[in-house]
C-alpha cells in the first residue's frame, strides 16, 4: 500500500529568501505527526505546498505515491484542510455549506453524510442557522465537518483549536482522536498548543527558520533534551541558533 503522504526535500524561496529549506518527512496511514515551531517558521508554507496552493522551488510532495505537481486536482480528493484563517461563506446556513462542499468533493450519499457529521460534531442545534451568526467554537466545528466531508486520507490541521475555550478545545481533540481511530486517517497537525501535540501526535517535527531542527516521539524529545514537557523542548530549540 502506498504511503498517504511523503515530503521529499521541499524548499520554497521568494526571490532569494528561502522560507522553507529542504524539509522531508513521511506520514504513514493511521499516524498523527505534529509540526511545531514559532510563527513564521514555515509550517503554513509547508502545508500550502502539500495542498498544491504553492509551487515548491525544490523537492516534491507525494500523495499516495503520486507527485501532487503532476495530478493536483485528482489528488486533492484525498486531502482536506482546516485553518482558523479560512472560513466558510457566512451568508449560507451550515447545512448549505456542507451541501456545497459535499458536491465539490463529489461525496456519495451526501444527506447521510451530513446527518452523520451533524450527529458526531453536535451541529444539530445550529445546522440551519447562518454560518456567520455562529460563535467561534461553533464555526470551528462546522469547519471540521467540512474538512472531513470527503473522508480524506490525509487531513491537514493548522492550529485547529486556536482561540477555542478549553471545553470546545477538548471536544475537538477528543473528536479527532476518535475519528482518526475509526477511519485510520493520517493527520498532519500544526499547532502551538504543546499539550495538544503531546496528547495527539505519535511523532513531532520541530521547525525553525524554515528547517526541521529536530524530530521524534514527544516523550523521546523530552528525554533527549532533558526537559519536563514539550513546551520546554520547544522553548529550548527555538531559542537556539539554527
Amino acid at each position, binding site marked *: 500500500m502506498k504511503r498517504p503522504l511523503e515530503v521529499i526535500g521541499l524548499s520554497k524561496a521568494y526571490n532569494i529568501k528561502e522560507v522553507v529549506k529542504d524539509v522531508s518527512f513521511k506520514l504513514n496511514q493511521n499516524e498523527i505527526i505534529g509540526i511545531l515551531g514559532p510563527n513564521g517558521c514555515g509550517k503554513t508554507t509547508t502545508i*500550502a505546498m502539500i495542498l*498544491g*496552493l*504553492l509551487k515548491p522551488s525544490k523537492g516534491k510532495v507525494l500523495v499516495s505515491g503520486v507527485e501532487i505537481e503532476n495530478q493536483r486536482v485528482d489528488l*486533492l480528493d484525498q486531502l*482536506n484542510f482546516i485553518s482558523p484563517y479560512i472560513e*466558510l461563506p457566512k451568508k449560507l446556513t451550515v447545512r448549505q455549506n456542507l451541501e456545497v462542499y459535499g458536491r465539490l468533493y463529489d461525496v456519495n450519499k451526501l444527506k447521510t453524510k451530513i446527518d452523520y457529521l451533524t450527529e458526531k460534531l453536535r451541529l444539530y442545534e445550529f445546522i440551519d442557522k447562518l454560518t456567520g451568526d455562529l460563535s467561534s467554537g461553533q464555526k470551528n466545528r462546522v469547519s471540521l465537518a467540512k474538512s472531513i466531508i470527503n473522508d480524506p486520507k490525509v487531513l491537514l490541521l493548522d492550529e485547529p483549536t486556536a482561540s477555542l475555550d478549553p471545553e470546545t478545545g477538548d471536544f475537538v481533540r477528543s473528536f479527532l482522536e476518535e475519528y482518526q481511530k475509526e477511519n485510520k486517517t493520517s493527520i498532519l497537525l500544526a499547532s502551538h498548543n504543546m499539550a495538544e501535540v503531546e496528547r495527539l501526535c505519535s511523532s513531532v517535527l520541530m521547525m525553525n527558520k524554515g528547517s526541521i531542527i529536530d524530530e521524534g516521539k514527544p516523550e523521546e524529545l523530552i528525554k533527549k533534551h532533558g526537559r519536563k514537557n514539550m513546551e520546554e523542548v520547544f522553548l529550548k530549540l527555538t531559542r537556539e541558533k539554527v
Partner: protein
Amino acid sequence: MYGLFLRHYYLIKSSLPRILDLIYWPTIQIILWGFISKFFSIHSDYYSNTLGVILTCAILYDILFRSSISFNMLFLEEIWSRNFTNLFIAPLKLKEIIVSLIFTALIRTLIGLVPAIILTSPLFGVSILKLGLPLLFLFLSLYLFGITLGLFVSSGLIRFGPSFENIAWSSLFLLAPLGCIYYPIEILPDLFQVIAKCLPLVYIFDETRNILLNGSIDYINLKQAYLLNLIYLIIGIFLFYLSFLRARIKGTLINMGE
C-alpha cells in the same frame, strides 16, 4: 476632528491606487459626457427617436456591465468571506471553475436585467424587444465580452489579491467612452478611434443603432464583434491559467482574504 482628518489623510497619502481612484471617476464621467454632448451639439437632428435609442443602448450596455460585475462578484465574495482557499483546495479543475462562474454570472445578469427591461416599457414606452431576433445576437456578444472582462479582472484578483478590487469596478467605466455606446465612432479623436476599433462594443452598438434607425441588419458588424470576442475570450482564459500559475509561485492564494 483633526485626528479623524489625519486618519484619512494618511490613508490617502500612502496609497497611490486610492489617489488614482479619486481622479479616475470624474475624469471618465467628463470624457463620456463630453463626447455625448459633442455628438448631440453637432447632430441634434440625428435621431428621430432619441429616447428609444439612448435607453436601448443603456440597457444593452448594462448587459455588459452586469455580466462582467456578476463574474467578478462571484470571485470577490469568496475573497470577502475568506473562503477562497477552501475553493482552491477542493478537487476543482480551473476549467470547471470558469464554466461554473460563466453560468452563474448569466443567472445573476438576468435577475438584474429583466425587471429593468420590463420597466422601460410602461415608464418610457421603449421596449428593447423591438430589436427582434438580432437582440439575441447582440445579447450573446455583450455577454461574451462581459465575462471576458470578468476573466481579465479575476485573473488580476488571483495574481495580485484583493488590492486589485478597484480595477474590477473601474475597468468597465473606462470602456464606456471608447465603446461608443451612445454615439458613432466618428465623434472620437483619431487616436481613440484606433483603440475603439479593437473593441467589439463599437460594432455591437453601431449595429444596434443601425437596426433601430434603419430597420435592417448588417451581419458584417456582428461578425466583426464575434471575432473580436473570440480573440479576447481566448486571451482571457489563457490569462486566468497564467495568473493561477503565477499565484502558486508567488503565494498569493495562501493569504487571499486575510
